[in-house]
């Protein structure tokens, strides 16, 4: 559903308007009402925030709940949005998407002890906060392993082909922060799992919204023989796909199935490291609806919980050699079983 259509249809008053204005369909309705606060990338990022939005929309249709959205311009707005929703009698639960919420939520969770909070991507230890973390390194390991396997073989399908002479896979990050380094570490570990001597150049664009730089980094990696480049760089990643297409090589998407959300590049997006923010949001709402909400809980979602994982691109689902698919399943199982220990920092590699 189109965002504005949704907003118009839901007819929710504004964050501010609810405090002063009437005209809300929530009144007299005792269904659950959720306040959603996104991270600063905002809706339309084709990944993280949109995933969360998707989750709450599914919950809306499945459980008949209602929700309101708030998109902060800067981390500075988050505190106020949390307080607004928490202080609003019509809102029963507040879902905070993104690690930037952590610091503010620490104070607000204590102050609004009666409100249930859900925090995605960070941890606040409080009785009324349910935390959802993702073991991105595990999912990244999987796509790294896939990349490693691909570069080691001769493969051609869709808009690309590998260079059998080279054994290189690349990584492009947005800003160089600990979270993204987790992606990088898992990815490199996965690639090395396929071939210990594999080359794994990685580079950070220094920005989430600079596709030009993303493109240049990826291009240079492809020039140097990389067969696959994985990005965890938000809008910068668009340039990685572009580079893959013009180089005739492969790319790996992040957060959601980018072979669908960035369908123009589906012929080169061999897979995506999916991070099921939608599931997290959906399940947290489900728990609240069923009165099973457990504050203080840290839901650490990895491969085992299907919180993260490698999802094959839509053009490649039917084409990837079966042995690769089997290898991936095997490594997944090995990680779940603890046979493979996936590092979550570069130092642990």
């Amino acid at each position, binding site marked *: 559903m*189109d*965002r*504005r259509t949704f907003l118009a249809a839901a007819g929710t008053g504004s964050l501010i308007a609810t405090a002063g204005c009437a005209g809300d369909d929530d009144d007299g309705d005792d269904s659950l009402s959720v306040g959603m606060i996104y991270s600063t*990338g*905002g*809706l*339309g*990022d*084709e990944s993280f925030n949109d995933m969360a939005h998707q989750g709450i929309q599914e919950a809306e249709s499945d459980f008949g709940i209602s929700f309101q959205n708030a998109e902060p311009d800067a981390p500075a707005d988050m505190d106020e949005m949390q307080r607004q929703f928490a202080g609003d009698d019509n809102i029963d639960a507040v879902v905070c998407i993104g690690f930037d919420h952590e610091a503010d939520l620490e104070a607000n969770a204590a102050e609004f002890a009666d409100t249930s909070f859900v925090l995605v991507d960070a941890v606040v230890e409080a009785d009324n906060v349910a935390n959802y973390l993702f073991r991105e390194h595990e999912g990244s390991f999987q796509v790294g392993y896939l990349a490693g396997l691909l570069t080691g073989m001769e493969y051609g399908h869709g808009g690309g082909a590998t260079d059998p002479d080279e054994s290189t896979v*690349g990584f492009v990050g947005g800003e*160089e922060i600990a979270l993204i380094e987790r992606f990088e570490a898992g990815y490199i570990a996965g690639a090395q799992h396929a071939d210990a001597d594999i080359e*794994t*150049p*990685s*580079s*950070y*664009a*220094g*920005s*989430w*919204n*600079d*596709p*030009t*730089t993303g*493109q*240049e*980094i990826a*291009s*240079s*990696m492809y*020039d*140097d023989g990389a067969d696959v480049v994985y990005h965890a760089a*938000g*809008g*910068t990643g*668009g*340039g990685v*796909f*572009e580079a893959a297409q*013009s180089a005739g090589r492969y790319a790996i998407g992040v957060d959601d199935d980018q072979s669908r959300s*960035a369908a*123009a*590049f589906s012929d080169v997006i061999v897979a995506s490291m999916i991070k099921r923010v939608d599931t997290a949001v959906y399940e947290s709402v489900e728990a609240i609806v069923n009165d099973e909400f457990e504050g203080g809980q840290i839901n650490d979602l990895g491969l085992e919980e299907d919180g993260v994982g490698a999802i094959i691109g839509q053009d490649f689902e039917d084409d990837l050699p079966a042995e690769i698919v089997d290898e991936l399943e095997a490594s997944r199982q090995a990680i779940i079983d603890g046979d493979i220990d996936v590092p979550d920092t570069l130092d642990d590699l």
Partner: protein
Amino acid sequence: MNRPTVTRRQGLAIGAILFGLLLVGFVIDGGRALLGDVAGVISASYFAAVFRFTVPIAFAAMGGIFAEKTGVINIGLEGLLIIGAFSAVAALWGLSATPVGANIWVAFLLAVLASTLVALLFATVCIDFKADQIIAGLAIWLIALGFAPFASIIIWDRTNSPSVGTFPVWEVPVLADLPTVGPLFSATLPVFLLVLAVPFSWYLLNRTTFGKWVEASGEDPKSLDTAGVDVRRIRYAGVLLSGVYCGIGGAGLALNTGQFVGSGDTMVDGRGWIGLTAYLIGNYNPIGAFLASFLFAALDALQLQLQQIAGFEVSSTLVGIIPYVAVVIVLTFVGRTRMPSAAGEHYESDE
């Protein structure tokens, strides 16, 4: 009156040395053998990438030169680049629904036109309505910075556009097949335009009548006026040229990647401001401005490449501020670049 004591060439040379020193200062990490790594990175395809990085910066810089040389300081270069980038993608996206189809050349022209129209607005405001040029330029930047994401949301329902297609890569026959240097000769339109625009701009400014008029308009408009040349028209021409150049730069940036990203500072991400620094360091000379732009782009690309060498620690944040530090140092210590005397001043003919 204080005359600049440093000539253009000296200024450039000092600037170049400065960058070299800064580069080494920032990049050396624990005394490792830097040179070998740098040499390993530098190749024809590295320079090809640098050229692509240079496109928006150098076009903005040359546009800025034309405007300021006629006496109108155009501080809104960043805004014009944003308009160029956004319009190119929006036009290409919109064209696909028209009988024209998704023709990238038409979209490119439309983007240049859009940027030129905004420059026309700026020119009118500055020349006919005698606005303070600095303030009006800031306004152009702020308007573009707000308008592009605003319109993106209106059109695509999000600040980032979908992918719309990119320029085809053209290869110079024969040369592109050469071994080592081949990659330099296969590029997209904006790069070729850049290679043409630098000498063209230099010639236009230094060897043509129009160039003399541009110089006179910025140095001493009254002389030009009394010589029977309409200062107003020359200034309009200068500002419109800055619009055209920024349009090429912005559209080149966006259509090389095939999408517009409007979040944050937009995908232009300060390149217009670096263009401003480039022409100051290049002392209003298109070739100097190009070299400075190229240097900044080379530094940025080098930084990205060095990161890929395992174990190499470079703070992209610190490398990113080098152009700004450089311009501050150049302005402060190397001797002022000589601004056109009448830049920033309104000119009113006696008639």
